[in-house]
């Protein structure tokens, strides 16, 4: 935390089992997804998730730049995760940093695991994720936004990819950590699921958990991902469904 005069560790869990924002352990923050808000990109999505605001855009498949990255048998998936300078409490200096580069890499690899890239040899599918306002879980919010943007761009893939972080606060496994829980909790485990196959394509973890806690965290994350998956599908249906009452609107 960049703020001056950091407070003592807050109470993350009440005796009644409620979290600092009143959620239960297995409850997600409010999630709103809008498909296709941008005009220049081939596909885009905006995600508001708790106090996170994340925009994603997809360009391609298109000619590869720089050319040496071109792959003869498939599309290369290039991902850029970036945080706006004003997205965090202490201004973030614009430009590349190691954290953003690592996140970009694991997200690109998550999508490479689901996109039918061999349909577009020698091209590039460019995924841009801009974190406009951050409050823990931005890589998951970015991945969700980018996944909806990929579908919006008509990219063929195995499935949409919902993602969520599971963590440990006050010794308990909790779904979808917010900033204070992430800062003062004992563990954070972001994951992304392919619902069609039931497999995870992004998995990271920091902190400490027993194997049993980890096992429960994975189960909770899968359940959370399925809820998020439904919201992703609904966002795309809202954008593309044939107007059911068009006759009246004519």
């Amino acid at each position, binding site marked *: 935390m960049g703020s*001056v005069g950091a407070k003592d560790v807050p109470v993350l869990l009440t005796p009644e089992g409620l979290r600092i924002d009143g959620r239960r352990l297995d409850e997600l923050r409010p999630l709103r997804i809008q498909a296709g808000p941008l*005009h220049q*990109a081939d596909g885009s999505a905006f995600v508001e998730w708790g106090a996170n605001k994340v925009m994603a855009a997809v360009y391609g498949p298109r000619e590869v730049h720089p050319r040496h990255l071109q792959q003869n048998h498939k599309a290369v998936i290039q991902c850029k995760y970036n945080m706006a300078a004003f*997205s965090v409490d202490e201004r973030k200096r*614009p430009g590349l940093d190691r954290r953003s580069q690592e996140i970009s890499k694991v997200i690109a690899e998550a999508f490479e695991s689901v996109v039918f890239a061999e349909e577009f040899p020698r091209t590039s599918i460019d995924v841009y994720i801009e974190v406009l306002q951050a409050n823990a879980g931005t890589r998951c919010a970015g991945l969700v936004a980018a996944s909806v943007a990929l579908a919006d761009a008509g990219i063929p893939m195995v499935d949409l990819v919902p993602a969520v972080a599971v963590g440990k606060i006050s010794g308990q496994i909790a779904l979808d950590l917010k900033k204070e829980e992430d800062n003062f909790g004992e563990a954070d485990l972001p994951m992304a699921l392919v619902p069609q196959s039931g497999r995870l394509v992004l998995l990271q973890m920091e902190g400490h958990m027993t194997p049993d806690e980890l096992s429960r965290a994975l189960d909770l994350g899968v359940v959370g991902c399925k809820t998020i998956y439904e919201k992703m599908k609904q966002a795309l249906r809202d954008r593309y469904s044939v107007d059911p009452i068009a006759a009246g609107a004519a």
Partner: protein
Amino acid sequence: MTPEVTAEIRTSHILDLAAEGKRLDGRGADEYRHVEVVPGFVTTADGSALVRIGDTAVLAGVKLEPGKPFPDTPNAGVLTTNAELIPLSSPVFEPGPPQPGAIEVSRVVDRAIRAAEAIDLTRLCVTPGEKTWVCYVDLHVLDHSGNLIDAAMLAGVSALAHAIVPAKRFGIAESDYPLDLQHVPVECTFVRLGDTLVIDPTFDEELAAQGRLTIATDETGRVVAMQKGLVGAFSPDDVREVVRRALIHGDRLRIAARGGKP
């Protein structure tokens, strides 16, 4: 720059229309697109505004942090303006360090804020020569459908107008207080299409343009900054004409910057 090639016949068509006083999107030469300002879009910033001009969108965030004043201005705060023309917003932008286009946007906006004395920088001074507020204005382009300078300026000034100095958080004062603007500069950009000077160009119009002219004005009727860009030329009478028009449109944009309906 990603190679994006625009068809010559599209450019010719835009010029042909302009010769008849018409534009591709049906606007008149002096008609601005719909303007929308959403102040406070980002709560992690001390001030912010999302601006939409037609399909163009720019998000500005203001951050204030304690720092050291410059040795030659020990009694003044520090203002830093930075524009990010991120590849998310247009197929013509590439990842990497700021390109000349981004630097031009940030400098043109910065000049107008400074020259208009939008912020009283001396009020940002905490201890002369030692401690002052550093005010960062970050301009994040989200959707590039033309006229980034006006959108970035409007977003920046609106974010400043709504900014709160986080004095309590940094232990500098008992409570936070509004940054307050002394003046409200806004920019109006025109491009030459043949003999016509059209306001608020779209991306296609910028590609067809034979010169771009940006005029920054403030609410007192002063011209506080100008920038001629792109390949092309203007006569002194052209400049006089767009200044007159920039003042009229500027007043509408200033209402929007304050969060009102333009």
